[in-house]
């Protein structure tokens, strides 16, 4: 036991920093979970986002129609 404690005390601050640095990436990847609660959107924000959703669906339909024209 005493020898273990001795070894432990040999780990310098620089070594600890190195270990923490090498672990940092994984820790950050592990933290990629939603920590902030879902935002409550205001009227204008809802309107803009819904308009853009409709715009996107309409445009995808236009692209499908364009492909149909192209293939016929």
């Amino acid at each position, binding site marked *: 036991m005493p020898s273990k404690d001795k070894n432990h005390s040999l780990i310098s601050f620089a070594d600890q920093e190195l270990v923490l640095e090498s672990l940092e990436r994984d820790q950050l990847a592990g933290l990629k979970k939603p920590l902030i609660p879902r*935002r409550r959107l205001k009227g204008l*924000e809802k309107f803009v986002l819904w308009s*853009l959703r409709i715009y996107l669906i309409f445009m995808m339909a*236009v692209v499908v*129609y364009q492909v149909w024209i192209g293939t016929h």
Partner: protein
Amino acid sequence: MPPWAAVVSALAFLCLAVITHRYWTWERTLLAIAVFNLVFVPVALLAHPDWHSVGRALLTWKPLPGLSKDTLIIVLADIGATVTPWMLFFQQSATVDKGLTKKDIHLGRIDTVVGAALAATAAVATILATAPLFARHMTAENFQAAEFAQALRPLIGRFGAALFALGIVEAGMVASVTISISSAYAFGEVARRPHSLNLPMAEGRVFYSVLFLCAVTAGAIVLIPGLPLIYVVLLVNVVAVLAMPPALVFLFMLANDREVMGDLVSPTWANILTTGVVVFLALAGILFGISVIAPSIFAFLGGK
């Protein structure tokens, strides 16, 4: 080389890039390949462009083709190949995977500017390299992807054509790897599953499955006999640009959320620029829609 060999090589490269389960290795592998994007510069020089005309075209944006549906598709596809929604997912997940923090923002900006400048240089070089074909009235209607390199051979020589082919292979490889990873990141975000290139296979099974599924599906589509690949590329990029306004508005809201961003909220000048880009992209998309479903109105607006 048969097409399937190219697809298998690209998949093998993808495996090689992610096999260490470290973002760092993936990034270095990809950057090593991406350097070959600059092979278009010597190819452009071999095409012996008229530099006076090049300078004039860069300064005056002329000659511009007339406004037609085909021109609109090309312009939209060009924009869609440059600014795409998948980049948003990729950029934010890659930032986390790389372990960047607030103190890295300055270097990140330099990274972005240097990357954009190199990409623009390669794009201009590609246009210059293929200019001799267009001068001889040979366009994308005559060729499919790699056939451009063969067509360039009598004009810029065997070495130049080989370099051009190498550039095309590199561009395709980098795009397929990056976009499939971006799709896996996006899926992980939406499905709330672990998503990181630093994850070991056991923990990131879903992430890696989506990644390889996307790459294999893309490879299978490319191998469909007789598929007009140029048309597919154009169409995919048009879809990308049409999907951009909602993604940008979402990013705009996120970047202006003080609860999330703290003192790093987007400045006014950046908000003005973003609004301009969103309006421009939305209007361009609407114009494309009009050209497809109401050609008479498009003609009334000056289109051909």
